[in-house]
């Protein structure tokens, strides 16, 4: 399909700018650009058609099943989008609260932030939240900055953070950016971090631990509390990566496991759409002792029931976002939590776990399941049998799924499993959809034996087939100039 620049027709216009009802100012020419920027020239219809065509070459949760492991691609309720579009929220200027008595101009928005904070505290078992982190990795960095501020305040000389080898890449990257060196802890034979491995790496230089629980294999670590206690024994802090909170929401709380800091991916567990790569939002919650380190500002409730922003927080790590986070994402998650309530949230975990175990059991014969035990919200297959017999790889299976109308699971992650395929159905999917996916997977496994070459040429129904990534990196073309 053509690029938008290739559709440009000189002189064609779509939107006209607002009324130019005042005289034109002629600025000093040395301050002006020499040529107008080459933005495409199109009619409104041209633009709408171009992007509609692009949308037909894209796949979302609304298109069909999207079992992308660790990304929690559940249905995104339309009511949340509707509420976020209310002019009282969408058109609200973030600097208003900084004007005199300006907080009173934004009471509705401040209340949303305040109540979302209270709900997340209860859901996670923490004492206070910041809504500011703008995505999961940003939440991790915020958490690591809080960890650093705590140790600095106590005069602790800490240099390392323990992270399991099955962790998302953002964990070690965030710890490193905050100034820590990373110690990678190998997974045990059972697929989780074991207590002995933690003991082996534990010393006074350990600032803390970053753990996803259940982990990226979908396994809950039964020793999680003991591990947190060990970290505390050297005055370290335990950080909970909430990427997989969907598995336990409404059932158990990271705060009760002993974690000191958590981030919650609203775009996963709390159903806000991921937008093809963002925006996300990842509020960070902490235990009482760490509340003073939360970023400024913090929403507080006055005794008269009104809300205000507190800026005077001497121990705070400072400003990590320009304002109050991705407000409209927080708003959408708030709407979702209000609609589900206590019972609804527990049903999320019930059905996320049920759906994952159902798919795992049905795929256990045709595929190898390296950790064949009760899983939580997701599980990992290995395509190693198909690889050994017919040279079929996880990517081949993924591409074959595309021809059968499904978005493929996450592949080649976690790296601790050979030819990994990580499947997360989520709670919103029906049995019929799961059965359809299971049938497709079984049929593909059969085809891997009977006609492996056909799998290697999949997909045939998508607009493109296996774009060459090596060529893309070698002959770098990243802008049409």
């Amino acid at each position, binding site marked *: 399909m053509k690029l938008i620049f290739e559709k440009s027709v000189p002189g064609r216009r779509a939107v006209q700018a607002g009324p130019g009802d005042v005289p034109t100012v002629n600025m000093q020419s040395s301050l002006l650009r020499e040529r107008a920027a080459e933005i495409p020239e199109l009619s409104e219809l041209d633009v709408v058609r171009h992007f509609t065509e692009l949308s037909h070459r894209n796949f979302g949760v609304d298109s069909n099943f999207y079992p992308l492991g660790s990304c929690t691609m559940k249905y995104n309720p339309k009511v949340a989008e509707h509420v976020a579009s209310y002019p009282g929220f969408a058109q609200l200027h973030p600097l208003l609260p900084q004007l005199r008595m300006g907080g009173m101009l934004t009471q*509705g928005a401040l209340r949303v932030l305040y109540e979302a904070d209270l709900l997340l505290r209860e859901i996670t078992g923490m004492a206070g939240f910041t809504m500011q982190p703008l995505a999961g990795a940003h939440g991790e960095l915020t958490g690591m900055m809080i960890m650093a501020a705590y140790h600095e305040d106590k005069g602790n000389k800490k240099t390392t953070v323990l992270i399991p080898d099955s962790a998302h890449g953002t964990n070690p990257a965030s710890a490193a950016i905050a100034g820590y060196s990373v110690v990678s802890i190998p997974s045990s034979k059972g697929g989780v971090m074991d207590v002995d491995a933690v003991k082996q790496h534990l010393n006074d230089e350990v600032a803390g631990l970053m753990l996803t629980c259940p982990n990226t294999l979908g396994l809950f670590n039964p020793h999680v509390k003991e591990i947190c206690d060990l970290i505390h024994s050297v005055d370290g802090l335990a950080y909970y990566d909430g990427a997989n909170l969907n598995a336990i929401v409404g059932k158990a709380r990271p705060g009760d496991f002993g974690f000191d800091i958590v981030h919650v991916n609203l775009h996963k567990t709390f159903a806000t759409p991921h937008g093809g790569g963002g925006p996300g939002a990842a509020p960070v919650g902490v235990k009482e002792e760490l509340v003073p380190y939360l*970023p400024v500002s913090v929403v507080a409730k006055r005794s008269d029931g009104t809300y205000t922003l507190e800026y005077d927080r001497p121990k705070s790590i400072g400003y990590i976002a320009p304002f109050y986070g991705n407000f409209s994402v927080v708003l959408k998650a708030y709407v979702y939590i209000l609609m589900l309530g206590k019972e609804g949230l527990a049903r999320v975990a019930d059905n996320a776990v049920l759906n994952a175990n*159902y798919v795992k059991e049905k795929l256990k014969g045709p595929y190898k399941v390296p950790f064949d035990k009760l899983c939580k919200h997701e599980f990992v297959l290995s395509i190693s049998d198909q690889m050994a017999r017919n040279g079929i790889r996880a990517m081949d299976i993924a591409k074959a799924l595309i021809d059968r109308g499904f978005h493929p699971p996450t592949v080649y992650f976690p790296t601790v499993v050979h030819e990994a395929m990580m499947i997360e159905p989520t709670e919103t999917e029906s049995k019929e959809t799961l059965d359809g996916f299971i049938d497709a997977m079984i049929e593909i496994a059969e085809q891997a034996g009977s006609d492996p070459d056909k799998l290697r040429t999949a997909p045939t129904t998508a607009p493109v087939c296996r774009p060459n990534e090596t060529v893309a990196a070698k002959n770098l073309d*990243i802008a049409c100039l």
Partner: protein
Amino acid sequence: MPFISNTSEQQAQMLAELGLTKEDLFADIPEELLCEDFKLPAGLSEQRVRDSLAELAEKNSTHLTCFLGGGFYDHFIPAAVNAIVSRSEFYTAYTPYQPELSQGILQAIYEYQSVICRLTEMEVANASLYDGGTALYEAMMMARRITGRNKIIIDDSVNPIYRVMIHSYTRNLKIEFEESQCRDGLVDRQQILDRLDDKTSAVILQNPNFFGCIDDFSDIAAAAHDKGALLIVSCYPISLGILKTPGAMGADIVTGEGQSLGLPLSFGGPYLGLMAAKKQYVRKMPGRIAGETTDASGRRAYVLTLQAREQHIRRDKATSNICSNEALCALTALVYLSLLGKEGLRETSQVCADKASYAYKRLTAMPGVQPHFRGKWFFNEFVLDLPCEAADVIGKLIERGFAAGFPLSRYYSGMENSILICVTEKRTKHEIGMLAEALESVL
């Protein structure tokens, strides 16, 4: 059961097939770690939630006529923008890990990168960062990787919110910061030259600066390059419809807040971090990048490229920890710019400057109201000195229906009487006249 498809019967059937009970599903969690009593409210119907949220929305003052900017702008957003970005194939997708199912967003990112390069006159751009502030922080970190140096010069005319963000992020990194003070609204060349040395990694400037004044940093770029340092410029993309570009000035890395490109103010986010650079630095750039390639049959195709820089490959050695970015906001910016087009962008930019200039003349004609910087060119914001405390005047004008501007005393000492006023293309001559009358009545 909101948003659960399976009926209780189906759930029971699935459990039976697994030979499990509902309780068994959580048998791997030690009993003492299960929470029996969440103190959470009962769920509400869609109607109840909409009603109560509509009530909260009403408690926010969005009816004020907005002359408030400070880096975050009330621009007109064509209806077609939302119609396009609300297509669920875009907004309910994840990061494009499977290119065959993501050609739509991948091509859009490629087009977005192209349009950002064209706007800034830079050679490469990434797929987006979180916002203008984190983008500026990432640019600074990128300059450190490129130069291997540790000293940063930042001018105090850079958005103060971004400056405090950068200081917060780098508290543990032992970076040597030197802050230059702008003089009469523009960067003081001598201060920059005095500070530039062979330890300097980058000079960070903003155009138009926080006070709205516009400048040409070509001389500073040359001076920085002489010392082996980089120039980082934070920009306001709408202004680039008419203003000299950072690329033309010789900037090495350009960042900016992309909110003005079709994104609603939404009380602070989601926004859009712009980043563009010279091509030679592309491998040091953070964030995702879409690239063009061909598929197995030779068809044009798009993929995420240069992933070897990123956290999922390099882990603790990555150029940045960023994973989720602001893809939908980048798409919004691309759609917005496409709807404006070449002439529409120039026109919008010019109309902003025209209306600000008109407002400046109208307001400075009033007794007691003085321009803070005399004879300086500005884009669509300017600073006025009032005969009394600006914060107080702004408070009184709120009662008259105006968000009249920003009190600079919040970030700058000695500017108690100074107000930063912003005029976008949305404001009319009539509204500017009303503001003047209201101001006159409260002074």
